[in-house]
């Protein structure tokens, strides 16, 4: 039951300070309210799904929820860093596609896996670095800089491989099909990677100077600068983290589909942003948690699962429901921030 522990882990650390905070002055509590909201929505969806459909609350469905969304979890973790600094990264979908294409193309050319994997992730890192430099040193708006990066990565994909490339490299397939089975729970290599990324993201944000500086920049860049914090380095690094996560997400995506295709991940940046927002992170920066973003991804994944279970509902309801959920969470955040001021 090792999988169930990480699966239940995201809400757990949130709950303990939460329960304590109830009795303490409400001020402490407020930071966790949006995440608590996400958690309630997630629990409600699980309960509704469990009562409406048989076989819904089974380890197989929950395992699949993680397996199908492993890449999105990784993207959302990276996006959380950027959004916490008050920026945005629109390029993650295309960078993910670029990473799948690089992986597939190089493996097809006969490069060893040990070289290809770091290269694919490194491509994301380099693009993230370029974003950071454009945004910080040339003061290009994050929106525009990462928009350019989005087009750049997508164009590069088509330049490398206009057609879908299948991956049949034996060691890559072995890596992709690695699975750990605990009773009815299954954990693939991509879920393992995603959980490690979440853990790292959590540790870095809450227990390192870099993480604190990220929050400080989001809270007020000018103040962070005046406090003598390394604002330039941190801002650039946040985009590097996001780019690297996107590269890694591409790797996970390539593992899942065992192919590289230039049109993968169109619009995935919006899913990542939506997950982060639903997870309680403020787009203005400064407030939010990595674990909230993971909950956000799970909510998005559950919407998809429920609509599949329902059977008669058409796929476009997914989009409408996501839109409505976004609206609810944004309104909730708005009410909370109004009460604060």
């Amino acid at each position: 039951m090792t999988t169930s522990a990480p699966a239940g882990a995201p809400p757990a650390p949130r709950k303990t300070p939460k329960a304590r905070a109830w009795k303490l002055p409400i001020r402490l509590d407020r930071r966790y309210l949006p995440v608590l909201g996400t958690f309630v929505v997630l629990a409600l969806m699980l309960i509704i799904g469990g009562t409406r459909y048989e076989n819904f609350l089974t380890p197989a469905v929950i395992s699949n929820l993680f397996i199908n969304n492993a890449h999105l979890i990784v993207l959302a973790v990276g996006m959380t860093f950027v959004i916490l600094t008050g920026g945005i990264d629109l390029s993650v979908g295309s960078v993910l596609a670029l990473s799948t294409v690089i992986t597939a193309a190089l493996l097809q050319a006969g490069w060893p896996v040990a070289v290809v994997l770091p290269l694919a992730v490194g491509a994301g890192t380099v693009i993230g670095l370029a974003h950071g430099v454009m945004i910080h040193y040339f003061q290009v708006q994050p929106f525009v800089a990462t928009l350019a990066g989005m087009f750049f990565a997508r164009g590069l994909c088509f330049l490398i491989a206009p057609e879908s490339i299948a991956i049949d490299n034996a060691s890559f397939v072995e890596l992709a099909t690695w699975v750990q089975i605990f009773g009815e729970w299954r954990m693939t290599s991509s879920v393992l990677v995603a959980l490690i990324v979440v853990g790292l993201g959590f540790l870095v944000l809450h227990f390192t100077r870099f993480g604190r500086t990220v929050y400080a920049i989001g809270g007020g860049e000018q103040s962070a600068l005046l406090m003598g914090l390394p604002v330039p380095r941190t801002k650039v690094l946040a985009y590097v983290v996001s780019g690297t996560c996107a590269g890694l997400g591409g790797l996970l995506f390539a593992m899942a589909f065992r192919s590289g295709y230039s049109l993968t991940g169109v619009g995935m940046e919006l899913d990542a942003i939506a997950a982060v927002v639903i997870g309680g992170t403020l787009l203005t920066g400064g407030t939010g948690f990595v674990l909230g973003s993971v909950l956000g991804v799970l909510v998005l994944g559950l919407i998809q699962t429920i609509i599949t279970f329902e059977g008669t509902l058409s796929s476009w309801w997914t989009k409408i429901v996501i839109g409505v959920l976004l609206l609810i969470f944004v309104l909730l955040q708005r009410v909370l921030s109004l009460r604060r001021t």
Partner: protein
Amino acid sequence: MRDVLRHHLFWPVAALVALLVANTVARPGFLAVTVRDGHLFGAPIDILRTTAPLLLVALGMTLVIATRGIDLSVGAVVAVSGAVALSHIASSPDPESPVTVLTAIGLALALCLVLGVWNGFLVSALGIQPIIATLILMTAGRGVAMLITGGMITTVNSAPFKVLGSGFWLGLPVAAVIAFGVFAVVAFVVRRTALGMLLEATGINPAASRLSGVRSRTLTWTVYTASGLFAGLAGLLISADTMAADANNAGLFIELDAILAVVIGGTALSGGKFNLSGTLVGALVIATLERTVTVLGISPLVTPLFMALVVIAVTLLQSPRMRERLTAARRRQVMAPPEPQPAARPDSTPDSTEVKAG
């Protein structure tokens, strides 16, 4: 010469000219315009026609950006507009009658107006951040469009509606006439009345402008409504061009193209001073770039790469740091006493230098 170099439209226009030169080199007859059946034909006319929807969307986007906002939902609104119009025409007994077509257009525009009002409500009445407020409609809008078309690509045959997309009026493409006409009217209204200045005031400092009697909220609400309406009109032009309502792909990425057009045109995303002529040039640059890629025989799939390169080049050249360098170099030449310049603070708004240069 120095004044020409300093002009805010210099780099965008230079990019446009460079693209046209590249095209003419690759295909010498590129700029030729011929008259056939009383209509003008040729690549430049074609570019004008393909620019039309983008220009309309970019026009609304410029106004929204001027108030420090952004409208991500325009692509979804384009899809909704096409879906409503074509579904109405397809379900009516007489698709060829002008009445049906006019009703369809009216319905589509009315719904888009409502969507624009909704965005404006979220941003100005509830005070939600523009990116996130319009992200809601961007996600849900395509779902709504698919709901309207039932998930299918609705195709219709209706001559009066087709005129919008591929008809000609006075020898010019109808789509271009509509888009440039709307552009001219809006530019006139915005620049010949105080409206433009009030919009800039709202964008530069919403609180201060409200205190000095500018009705910022109403203005913000108006620009989102206008953006929705223009996106709806663009959606009609696009669907009339293909005569098919594709809820998934109609207007896909048009919001990004429109934002690029605005940025290439020199309007800063941080709001305030805006530049409609720049947006016009920006939209033309993007349409010409798409054309150039096909003329040069490169796969159109690689277009995003060139788009990225143009955007990176133009934004870097317009970035405050580059401008400071250029200003510093010029000052050293002139040996004029240094005027107080905003220090290189990371959060200094790019348009503060923009205002000086413009």
